[in-house]
């Protein structure tokens, strides 16, 4: 022991004489490490968090208000039949390896994403495209097979960023994009550092570099924030530690919204979940506010359909099936299950599912539905539940923004089939007037609330924690992003 104390003291001194961080860098915490750095080749949200608008840019982008904004396309026009988009591309843009950006790259990226051998994680976004043409280097003409209201939004997703033919194959480990930053270093398992891209055509951003550190453990994340090892945590993983964080005046907490929709997914290919009365009974049996308090520390927002408050066109339907166990029992009896039934619910690892599953099972138990809980890790969940539809119910957060299209997808894992919804969805996609699109977007949500294919629980909160002097962090985010070029240090 005698040997350790001097050693400790020496190390403490060494730590103290490391110079203070210059104020043109930022270190950001995230729970999961991106496996690769190419958002067109992997679905992990962490890939987008590091690269979106930092390294890679799309034709369009999603701004802090959740709206579609210009990016590599500075403006666009839509033909009268709603099928042809003409994008006017930004001038003088080069990739970080010096390659010039032009319509060729747009055509290459879109054609690659919709090709037969494409491994794009969101290939469905590109399905409406019939052809891409390049009348000039600065103009891209994208023709769709039918009007698609969600197209511009889709082109702003991380999976739709523009890549160059020469670097596309190596972007997974050596990303080359048009954004203000490029990869500096990547110590796998610990951090990724982005540095300014000297070839960036726009205004040089305030931060010279940004380091993304990967800290999965909630207690470790809390300690790193409190110790000042991190400047910000966009999706802070420890809601239970917030009182402690709030007490520290050097840190700021912002509770916003994400596009995560926590739902109890039901497999309608299995009895009794094909029965609307049963689904509605389950909806009445669940107290969303109690779930929110118990599982999300009250930071979530109860929802009644598959959309979140941060989205334009969101309709608040949370009171469609107010908590009413008596009504639930009555509906169960009407459906032919006066004594309830037994079911199995599989729970992926996050707390909203594991802790949430206990809460939901207790509530369903009150109306006679006996729930057996089965824990499952993600790999197995994706194989068994998502791919093979071998499940009755599960709890999961659907994080993709504006993903109502999945309810019109007959092969999706919840096996929801509704001619009325499909017709409504086609009508929405065909609408070209923004006002009409918004109204139909609301109708889609109402249709789902009526059919209750899944039990909609809560919108996932975005618990952001950052240094009180850091500017440019987003309160809400439809997609998980850390836009470093917008960040700066207050004096």
């Amino acid at each position, binding site marked *: 022991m005698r040997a*350790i104390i001097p050693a400790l003291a020496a190390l*403490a001194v060494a730590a103290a004489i490391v110079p203070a961080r210059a104020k043109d860098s930022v270190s950001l915490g995230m729970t999961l490490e991106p496996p690769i750095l190419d958002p067109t080749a992997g679905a992990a949200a962490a890939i987008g968090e590091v690269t979106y608008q930092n390294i890679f840019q799309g034709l369009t982008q999603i701004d802090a208000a959740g709206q579609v904004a210009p990016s590599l396309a500075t403006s666009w026009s839509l033909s009268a039949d709603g099928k042809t988009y003409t994008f006017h591309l930004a001038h003088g843009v080069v990739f970080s390896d010096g390659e010039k950006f032009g319509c060729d790259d747009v055509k290459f990226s879109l054609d690659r994403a919709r090709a037969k051998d494409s491994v794009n994680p*969101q*290939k469905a976004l590109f399905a409406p495209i019939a052809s891409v043409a390049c009348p000039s280097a600065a103009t891209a003409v994208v023709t769709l097979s039918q009007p698609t209201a969600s197209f511009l939004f889709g082109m702003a997703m991380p999976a739709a960023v523009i890549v160059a033919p020469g670097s596309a194959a190596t972007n997974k480990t050596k990303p080359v994009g048009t954004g203000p930053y490029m990869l500096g270093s990547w110590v*796998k398992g610990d951090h990724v550092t982005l540095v300014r891209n000297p070839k960036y055509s726009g205004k040089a951003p305030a931060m010279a570099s940004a380091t993304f550190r990967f800290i999965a453990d909630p207690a470790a994340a809390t300690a790193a924030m409190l110790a000042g090892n991190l400047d910000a945590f966009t999706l802070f993983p420890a809601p239970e530690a917030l009182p402690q964080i709030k007490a520290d005046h050097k840190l700021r907490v912002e509770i916003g919204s994400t596009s995560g929709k926590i739902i109890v997914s039901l497999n309608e290919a299995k009895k009794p979940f094909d029965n609307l009365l049963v689904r509605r009974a389950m909806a009445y049996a669940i107290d969303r506010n109690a779930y929110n308090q118990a599982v999300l520390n009250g930071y979530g927002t109860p929802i009644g359909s598959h959309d979140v408050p941060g989205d334009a066109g969101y309709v608040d339907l949370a009171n469609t099936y107010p908590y009413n166990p008596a009504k639930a029992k009555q509906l169960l009896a009407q459906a032919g299950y006066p004594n309830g039934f037994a079911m199995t619910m599989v729970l992926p690892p996050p707390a909203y599912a594991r802790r949430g599953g206990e809460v939901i099972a207790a509530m369903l138990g009150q109306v006679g539905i006996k729930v057996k809980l089965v824990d499952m890790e993600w*790999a*197995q969940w994706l*194989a068994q539940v998502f791919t093979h539809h071998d499940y009755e119910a599960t709890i999961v957060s659907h994080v993709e923004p504006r993903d109502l299209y999945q309810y019109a997808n007959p092969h999706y894992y919840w096996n929801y089939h509704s001619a009325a919804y499909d017709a409504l969805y086609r009508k929405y996609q065909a609408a070209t007037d923004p006002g009409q699109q918004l109204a139909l977007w609301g109708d889609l949500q109402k249709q789902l609330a009526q059919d209750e294919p899944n039990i909609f629980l809560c919108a996932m909160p975005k618990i952001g924690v950052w240094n009180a002097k850091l500017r440019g962090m987003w309160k809400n985010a439809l997609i998980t992003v850390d836009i470093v070029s917008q960040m700066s240090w207050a004096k």
Partner: protein
Amino acid sequence: MTGFLLRRLLGLVLMLVAASVVVFAVMNVLPGDPALLMLGTGATRTTLAALRHQMGLDLPLWQQYLRWAGGLLRGDFGISYTYQTPVAGLILARLGVTLPLAAMSIVLSVGIALPVGVFAATHQGKAADAALMGAAQLGVAVPNFWFGLLLILLFAVHLGWLPATGFPGWSGGLLPGLAALLMPALSLALPQAAILARVTRSAVIEAAGEDYVRTARAKGLTARAAIWGHALPNALIPVVTIMGFQFSYLLAGTVVIENVFTLPGMGRLLFQAIAGRDLITVQDIVVLLTGSVIVVNTLVDLAYAAIDPRLALADMTGRGGEA
């Protein structure tokens, strides 16, 4: 001695082949598909099929095994499914954290355990002995990850002396690297030191009662010199045996501790690779770990021979002696 080494080498090869088959089988029986994990909930049938083909997952299992095992024989560890880079590079970078961490915790644990054990033995039955052994009992009972969190709270959050988590890399200099590893090494070392101290204590007490210690005292040595010079060396065999056992616990401990401290070491790589179904990486690491456990056990046996030459002699004359 040569025969002993040859037999060990053959055992090593057979164990490695067995380990490779078992881990390959287990990883392939586990539900979950690395391609599906890459694509997530937006996966479609066509993208999944295209990616499986790209990753070689559509080949028959025996071909996948031979491809991997054949690569290993040629020193090629394959390409990680998750990171899409050579596994050898990933493992090498991680060893730069895990090996120093393991070495530091062994040094700490022996450095704590031997003096404590000998001190307790020489003060057998006194208050200091009871206090030290009580503390050791506590050390055995406290889980290392919890102890690690306590250390973080004290030294990083409260005192601000050491970084809470993470590893700056050796490129930033030796001291920051060692500083980052100190708390994790201590969390790993303490439970091990507790066990080792108890073993040392009983072994020294036993040896202290032997005739040769009495003879040493009779020749005029001080009690201290007799214990450290004569009793302890003879008490080392059980201590080294326990250290050998502890090596595999140490490897398992790094998985937990590297996660608590967010260290980019091999334990965390293994943990993430299992969750991410990075089959190739898991297989490579398990084969490597198996190999290192066998090598360490062999070294422990060789250490017996160094400590007690009678054992090596027994082995050479073919009368057994492998503990």
